[in-house]
């Protein structure tokens, strides 16, 4: 797979509850996308003062059609960049880079899977569910959000799974509470062996911990702030334990966004844990050393 940058065209944009659903013609990208991949959109037009790309999980794709391959994303308007995106209309031009990142890993055998989506984090889970079902996997959905209009894809989930559990924090739909309140009962009922999750960091941490408790594998797609989405800016890093047991600051754009839940040091996200590969060594300041020459860079990067 090679990422490409294309000048895409908006095919349609519509509301979906509190969110926007944007379909773009993106030849060269659509054909390559697998569930869990994301795309990075430039916002504001060619002379935009907003330089950083906005990254979105791919909701679904169509390989070919009358217009060529299409890519669909779901987003919430919460800043200037997403506001600009929300004002796009059919035939408008969007600069799209993709497919980016590592997609969800699929099981080799037909296993029981639970798919957990927080808010519009559920977007990449439907294409995943389809692939899992093709492999004979049982699929159960858990969708959670603050309120009903912030759920995404409830009907679609019902169409393609054995069961759907819904939670909202205000009780407007489903159970009052969070996805992790209903997850233990689902583990017990279905005996899920793999959990796929996408949503806010706090939810991912709780899901990963529950999965570990029930002896299930977890595949978590993280949402980290990114500037480029292609692996060159080094801003979207988080501490992840490798096969060798060593913690490294990995880029969620190229090493993720999907990580094994048990490998991410969730409680340390936003810090550089002391035992990280290349973590700053705390050197007591040498007395009398002034200025750059000869003094050591005893910087303390880790922050709590």
């Amino acid at each position, binding site marked *: 797979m*090679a*990422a*490409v*940058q*294309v*000048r895409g065209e908006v095919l349609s944009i519509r509301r979906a509850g509190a969110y926007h659903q944007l379909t773009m013609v993106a030849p060269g990208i659509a054909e390559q996308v697998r569930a869990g991949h994301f795309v990075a959109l*430039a916002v504001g037009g*060619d*002379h*935009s*003062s*907003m*330089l*950083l*790309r906005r990254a979105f999980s791919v909701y679904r794709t169509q390989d070919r059609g009358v217009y060529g391959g299409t890519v669909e994303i779901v987003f919430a308007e919460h800043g200037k960049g997403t506001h600009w995106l929300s004002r796009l209309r059919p035939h408008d031009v969007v*600069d799209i*880079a993709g497919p980016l990142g590592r997609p969800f890993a699929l099981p080799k055998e037909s296993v029981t899977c639970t798919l957990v989506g927080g808010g519009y984090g559920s977007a990449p889970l439907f294409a995943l569910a389809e692939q899992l079902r093709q492999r004979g996997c049982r699929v159960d959905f858990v969708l959670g959000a603050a309120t009903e209009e912030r759920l995404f894809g409830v009907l679609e989930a019902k169409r393609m799974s054995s069961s759907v559990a819904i939670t909202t924090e205000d009780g407007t739909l489903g159970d009052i509470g969070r996805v992790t309140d209903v997850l233990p009962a689902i583990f017990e009922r279905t005996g899920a062996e793999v959990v796929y999750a996408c949503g806010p960091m706090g939810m991912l941490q709780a899901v990963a911990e529950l999965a570990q408790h029930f002896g299930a594998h977890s595949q978590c797609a993280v949402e*980290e*702030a990114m*500037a*480029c989405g*292609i*692996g*060159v*800016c*080094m*801003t*979207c*890093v*988080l501490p992840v334990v490798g096969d060798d047991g060593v913690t*490294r*600051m990995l880029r969620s754009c*190229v090493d993720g966004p999907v990580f094994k839940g048990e490998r991410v040091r969730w409680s340390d*996200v*936003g*810090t*550089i844990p002391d035992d*990280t*590969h*290349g*973590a*700053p060594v705390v050197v007591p300041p040498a007395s009398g050393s*002034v*200025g*750059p*020459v*000869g*003094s*050591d*860079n*005893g*910087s*303390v*990067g*880790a*922050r709590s």
Partner: protein
Amino acid sequence: MTRLTRVIAPGSDDEPLPDVDMQATLGALTLPNPMMTASGCAGYGRELDQFFDITSIGAVVTKSIMMSPRSGRATPRMAETASGMLNSIGLQGPGIESFMSRDLAWLESRGARVVVSIAGGTVEEYARLAQKLRVSAAVSAIEVNISCPNVEDRGLVFACDPGASSTVVDAVRRNTSPGVPVFAKLSPDVTDIVNIAEACVDAGADGLSMINTLLGLVIDTDAMRPHLAGVTGGLSGPAVRPVAVRAVWQVHQALPEVPILGMGGIRDGHDALEFILAGASAVQVGTTLFNDPMAPPRILGHLQRLLADRGFSRLSDAVGHAHQPVPAPVYSVIDVDIANEPESAGAEG
């Protein structure tokens, strides 16, 4: 070359490029064209090679490399600002050994021209980095990053002090093969950049790279705290371009014979041309890569057209052109006619 045809932003089209000699001369180093990636914005070239042929540009400038692996700073590491961004990466990298065996080896096998950016906490570290790189034939030049703002102690930014700058440059120059030029990358956050530039050149720098980022700070008004985990960060992007062009202008004026690599917010051919006219012999594209990973060939093509439009047959003829005195205005009979125009126009109406 099919991917180069998918050029998307203004300043380029599919027409063949006009005939301009784009060769860039940087002291002993000659590059086929003046376009480079800026350090810290292009990784080690591999990711961008998906978007354009990295062997087609003058050189890839690597992310600054240090002796040991380094985790960098905590997140959040960046904040978007008007026409720019603040970053606080903190020189995350694999260390020189891993860099040379994996990343530099890949760049060499790919056939890219490579400028290796090095950074150290001490003069000794810079010297050892230069020694390590001496064995590699893949290094076209060394860029000495003495100006990274993302260190905990501002007193450690070598480029803020002429003496410290000079010591580092001297150490690197003495440990580098004579045929490999050494460029010192300067900080704009100084009172007199010419003073620092002169110190670097006196210490043996073959050229100067200008500018590194400006120290900045963004406050998150919801959290009511600094947005970056590292509190301060380096400001880059088109927002800093006039500062960078000013720095290039001042240093070229004081040291006209010294090659300058110009960078700071270059987004299209006009921006690149500003730097060339101010005195840069080559340019680097940094933050723009985050917005448009295909930018380098696009900007290069645009620059070539703009040079042709202005009657330049060689890039080198345009270097520093803006310093030439403006020719005295010539008044003609036509001017006199225009001056009289209101009267006659009024008579007609």
